[in-house]
């Protein structure tokens, strides 16, 4: 089940289904049922109850609130969470060790160090990093906190630009002009859904855009080091298969998504006033022409 239809979340779902198919669990061997709450939390709770009532071999919960409502409602049916940034803070599991309960899963948290390394590779003299994000998204507030700490360690500063709604993204970005050397964006749903408006501001003001989500590079970001949500789904699928083959969820330790990929867009970088080094372009898994 998923909280909302959204490209990253849907890519995760497709990854899970493909992994199951690759292992021989196709339509006639397992029955896969998918429901999305279409953004409504109360419906998410109801979907959780429906699935529990159907007594499946495993429930995969995509996103934090979806996972919470399933975990709160069952102590017996195996639950696999995925695209949850911090499952310990979300109280899905008590630690990163095997939980001993009916819950395990995969986190999509990304180490922040490599992100800052990428910022410096694109703009070596960057001192001030701006970040547009929605204060209502856990995945973003966690990144803001970590990024702030990491930047302070390296003698750099973070300039925050909160944008609670999609229409707030342009004004928030404009507010950063003159105050920052680069703008960093994470997997924030609001920002991702209206990335073009951010690109407009960045191109006009010649500020490079660095992202933690690969999907936005072809939409105009200079470079991104992101989790492939499809691969995250494949990784989640592997856990589901282990459950289907008889392992208990309580004996499987929660994992962190292990595949990062670099995407670059040299043309967009030029528009934003920087030239990407040949090294960087060569090391990228994806180069947008």
């Amino acid at each position, binding site marked *: 089940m*998923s909280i909302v*239809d959204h490209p990253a979340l849907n890519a995760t779902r497709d990854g899970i289904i493909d992994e199951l198919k690759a292992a021989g669990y196709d339509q006639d061997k397992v029955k896969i*049922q*998918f*429901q*999305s*709450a*279409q*953004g*409504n*939390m*109360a*419906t*998410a*709770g*109801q*979907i*959780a*109850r*429906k699935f*529990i*009532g*159907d*007594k499946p071999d495993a429930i995969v919960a995509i996103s*934090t*609130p979806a996972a*919470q*409502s399933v*975990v*709160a*409602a*069952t*102590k*017996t*049916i195996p639950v696999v969470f995925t695209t949850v940034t911090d499952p310990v*803070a*979300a*109280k*899905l599991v*008590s630690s990163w060790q095997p939980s001993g309960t009916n819950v395990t899963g995969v986190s999509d948290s990304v180490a922040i160090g490599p992100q800052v390394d990428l910022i410096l590779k694109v703009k070596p003299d960057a001192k001030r990093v701006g970040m547009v994000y929605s*204060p*209502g*998204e*856990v995945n973003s*507030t966690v990144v803001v906190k970590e990024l702030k700490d990491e930047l302070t360690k390296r003698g750099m500063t973070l300039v925050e630009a909160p944008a*609670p709604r999609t229409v707030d993204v342009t004004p928030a970005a404009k507010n950063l002009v003159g105050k920052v050397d680069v703008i960093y964006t994470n997997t924030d749903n609001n920002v991702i859904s209206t990335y073009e408006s951010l690109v407009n501001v960045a191109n006009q003001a010649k500020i490079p855009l660095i992202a933690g989500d690969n999907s936005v590079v072809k939409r105009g970001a200079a470079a991104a080091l992101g989790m492939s949500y499809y691969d995250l789904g494949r990784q989640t699928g592997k856990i589901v298969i282990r459950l289907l083959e008889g392992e208990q969820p309580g004996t499987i330790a929660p994992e962190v998504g292990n595949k990062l990929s670099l995407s670059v867009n040299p043309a967009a970088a030029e528009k934003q006033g920087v030239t990407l080094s040949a090294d960087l372009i060569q090391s990228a898994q994806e180069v947008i022409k």
Partner: protein
Amino acid sequence: MSLISLMGALEIGLIFALVALGVLISFRLLNFPDLTADGSFPLGGAVAAVMIVSGYNPWLACGMAALAGAGAGCLTAWLHVRLGILQLLASILVMIALYSINLRIMGAPNLALIGLPSVFTPFISQVEDNAWLIQPILLLFVVLFAKLALDAFLTSEMGLALRATGANPRMARAQGIATSRLTVIGMALSNALIALAGAFYVQTQGGADISMGIGTIVVGLAAVIIGETLLPARSLYLITLATLLGALLYRLMISLALNADFIGLQAQDLNLITAVLVTLALILPKLKQKLKSKQGKQPS
């Protein structure tokens, strides 16, 4: 549809029955179009979640949540009656302000309650799954109590004055009723119920999330209107009962929509199916009437 699925629909229906009773007070009785609900529902959830995380008694947390909701309702009413801001606009202002306030209260966009005590904990087994049965039963008592208390209030002298304020403010003022004061009281009561629903909601869902308020008002309104359509009533006791039934029915329809996959519908069709089912519920009584009058006209 499995039994657990059905009980899940009832559980969320009962929680939203409290929302529907709140919406009944503002929209129907006070004639005050109030969108505060989208903010006061998560406000109640946030207050309750923070208090439970800090170790307070869950019932006390529910009480404080209701108080916070009452405060939000007072604020909306005050913006309207004292500062003269249009009702709809006043409620939108409070609703968007509450988004930031709720973030402040929770300290993060998501606050987990899994494993912490809730009002349901003393009745729930810690080893096997029986929450699906216990939670709706306990909520049924809470909701019935709320309905009876509300009935008692609305038939009291103050309650009658409140209804007069909504029905005909001019006449009410002429009768010496302090309409401004009653608007404030009514809005406080309405949002207290909605916030209380939020408090119960976070305890059944394993945590509070900043996005949980989205669409609260729509569900509340739908419940009130479905209730009115299916059980048209003039007596207050029946009106509140109809509202409760409307909330339950709305959730049962979503449950039906969730179980509609056998006719080739998919996850992304959920909202559409729900809308179609609700529309059917709304026009059903009219269709029945039409059918009856046609039969009556047929020559015997």
